[in-house]
């Protein structure tokens, strides 16, 4: 749970960033990618990820598509839209600004 808390407010940013690098991921792949690329530090729960995905789809930042997997099951894959790309830009610069500010505080303290 603590790990999820660390993610609060930045889940959207992570998902958008991942999808910008590697389009057409399904939900599990996104979860796995967040874990692996953060060196297993950040872990997202399904209960947070899927609502976030649906919310972003609703907002028009990402779009989804059904594909057929090798196992015969269908999977839903997600990719970034143009407005999602813009959103990513905003979120990224916001994050940079915040982390910069926090670092400055930590340094001075």
């Amino acid at each position, binding site marked *: 749970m603590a790990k999820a808390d660390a993610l609060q407010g930045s889940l959207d940013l992570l998902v958008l960033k991942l999808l910008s690098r590697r389009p057409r991921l*399904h939900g599990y792949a996104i979860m796995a990618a967040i874990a692996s690329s953060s060196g297993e530090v950040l872990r997202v729960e399904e209960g947070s990820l899927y609502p976030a995905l*649906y919310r972003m789809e609703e907002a028009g930042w990402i779009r989804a598509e059904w594909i057929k997997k090798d*196992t015969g099951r269908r999977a839903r894959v997600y990719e970034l839209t143009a407005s999602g790309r813009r959103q990513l830009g905003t979120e990224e610069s916001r994050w940079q600004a915040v982390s910069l500010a926090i670092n400055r505080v930590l340094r001075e303290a």
Partner: protein
Amino acid sequence: MSLWSRISNALRSERLNREIDEEFESHLEEAIAAGRDPKEARRAFGSAMRARESGHAVRVSGKLEELVQDACFGARLLIKNRGFTAVVLLTLALGIGINTVIFSVVNGVLLNPLPFPHPEQLVALHESKPNFANGAISYPNFLDWRKDNHTFAAMGLARGYGFSMTGRGDAAQLSAEFLSDGFFAVLGVRPVLGREFTPADETLGASPVAMISEELWRNKFDGAPNAVGQTITLDGKNFTIVGVIPASLKLQVSNFQVCDVYAPIPQWSNSILMSRGAGLGFHGIGRLKPGVTIEQARADMERVTGNLAAAFPDDDRGIGASMVSMKEQIVGSTRIFLLVLLGAVGFVLLIACVNVASLMLARASGRGREFAIRAALGAGRGRVIRQLLTESLLLGITAGAVGLLPAAFGLKAALHALPAALPRAEEIGIDFRVLAFTSLISVATGILFGLAPAWRVAKENPQTALKEGGRGAIGANQRTLSALVVVEVAVALVLLTGAGLMVRSLVRLWDVDPGFDAHNVETFNISMPPAMASATAEMVRAKHRALNEALAEVPGVTAVSQTWGAVPMAGEDDQWFWIDGQPKPRTNNDMSWVIDYVVDPDYQRVMKIPLKRGRFLSRHDNEHAPLVVVVDDVFANKYFPGQDPIGKRIDLDNFGGKAAEIVGEVGHVKQWGLDSDDTQQLRAQYYLACLQVSDDFLLGMRSGSSFMVRYNGNLAPVIGGLRSTVRHMSNEQQLFGEQTMESIVADSMASRRFAMILLGGFAALALLLACVGIYGVMAYLVSQRTQEVGIRMALGARRSDVLLLVFKGGARLAAAGMAIGVVSAIGLTRLMRQLLFDVSPTDPMVIAAVCVLLMLAALAACFVPARRAASIEPMRALRTE
């Protein structure tokens, strides 16, 4: 997501659920493949259900499904609180119902186009003369207008008449119109059978033809197709039926109204029909050519009448054509009246809304805890507001549906109560526009009264609400509730002022002396036997004497007079004269005009008109005696100011310039009605004896005569006696159109009285609703302040202090509302100036009276809450918390 996909999502939510399941299954598969323990993975997905729920909320139906949920929840809640729901529904349904009724009247009368093809091309035509802006058109003038104009596709002329029909059962009195040819074609109305009059029918000396109404055709001819070609005997003359006019035709404009039988104008045996100076009660209609504006038509007719004035200066100098769109002619006079009523019911609805809003607000604060818990559980503030608005919309729409019921069923009944003066009453009904209006105000109402509580909830902090046990925003609620009461009182004051002004106008009107005593006076007509059609002047006089003598014998009748000229408030007639010794003016329009009453000597006793000087007409003023005339005081002051008119002589143009001696002066009679008589141009009056009128005039009375009698005791036996006497004299003559003089006077005030009754009713309703509102708010405030009152009393406040506290609170609210209301009323009541009589729209008496009434009502509404507050037991009140 587009609205469409949202809606289709909601409808396919089952499929979507499946898809979400499928996505999770796919996810699970990946997880297990990645080496996670299947059991553990599934447990981790215990939250999958939750994820799906919130995912669903985001994704699927979104708002739509919430709406259904809110509506269901709201409906359950409303059904649970039956009393509350019933009060709210009833209040709103009443408000919406009367708005629907009044709007459907406005819609049918003012908004809907006339039921004819291209109604915008139709106009009503009149002759403008020095004394009358919209006077009657003389027949020769009409013929020239029709021939010479360039802007009209067609013109028609009409005048009412009464025929006595014989030869088909008992003699019957038929309402009739004399028409120019092509009259119905102007309107675009076709006969259901046969044809309309042709130009050949409208020539002098043409064989008599007639059109009959569909009703007469069904009743007297069994609806047989061969009725066309048969003859009908009217006033002893055989008319060949050429057409049947559809019963669907409803029209009353100028001097035309739908009737039993129609005949071409030249069939009217009137010796001055072809006289260019005689109006004779004809008024016209016209259809403009496509694309022609009424201004162009006016300019065109100015040219036509100008030419006529040059060609016939004696009769047509100063004569013009006046016209107004037919719809304006028919409904123009009712516009203010109807709009004032619509405004009034709008205010009533506003008060109803405010009442319901304060109820909802009080309830919403009672539900503070519920909302706080929902907020704490994660419901967004918007969601709670949506919930509240959905509930109020649900109420508004249900109330609209309930309100439509009485409107739909009661409309026809209500219309019967309307004064006959309301035009197009038969066209009023519930149509698409009325339904749209009702839906609109239902929704608007729901939003209006739902906004206040929703707004309050939006401002509330769930934490404080929970802490304070659901009484979070009492102070703020009190302010909002108080504001609502102030609004209510203000609106009620505006309505009460409107009603008060109408009442005062009516009182003023009743106080106006009509110049005669209408009490115990009956008026009626008698049709003459067909044989009289060819009577000589001598025979008409003999008949006149015989009828007067016979009717005077009827038990209960104390005085009889025939009335051949004008009848006060019921029929107008005018003549012209010049003062004896002065040169005869060149044209009729240069002469002096006067209202003429052609009556018998007993007329003064029938009407109890006060004699000012000299004497009234007597039995000796007959055809053998010198011509005498009695004038009224307006006449005397106008033509013989400062002199004694008795003995003066005037030359009567209608008697070929014969001089008449003035033998008496009587009081003025309000010919034009109690309200407008003083402002009319033509007010001078004179009285002539029936037996002394010219032979021309006399021969006009061969078809029938009008009567006025004064009676004692009950009217019914008198009418019975008159009827049997008339029948006894000849079974071919009959009595019809009986009406008491009192009802004629009352009718002259009908539309005002009607406006007063309706406005009074609406104002009473508004007052009642406002009182309920004040009561509700004060009761709520008292209940919220139980503790405070308890403390006060524990500290030594007396019960009277507590009473005063509540009354003061109520009075303060009422006073604030009244201040706003008075300002609004002063602004608004000037719009109804036209409906008032002899009362200023800002009459201080009325406003003061209304304020006192409203204050008393407000204090009365405070009475129960005040008593409840005063009866609080301090100890118990303190213990309740």
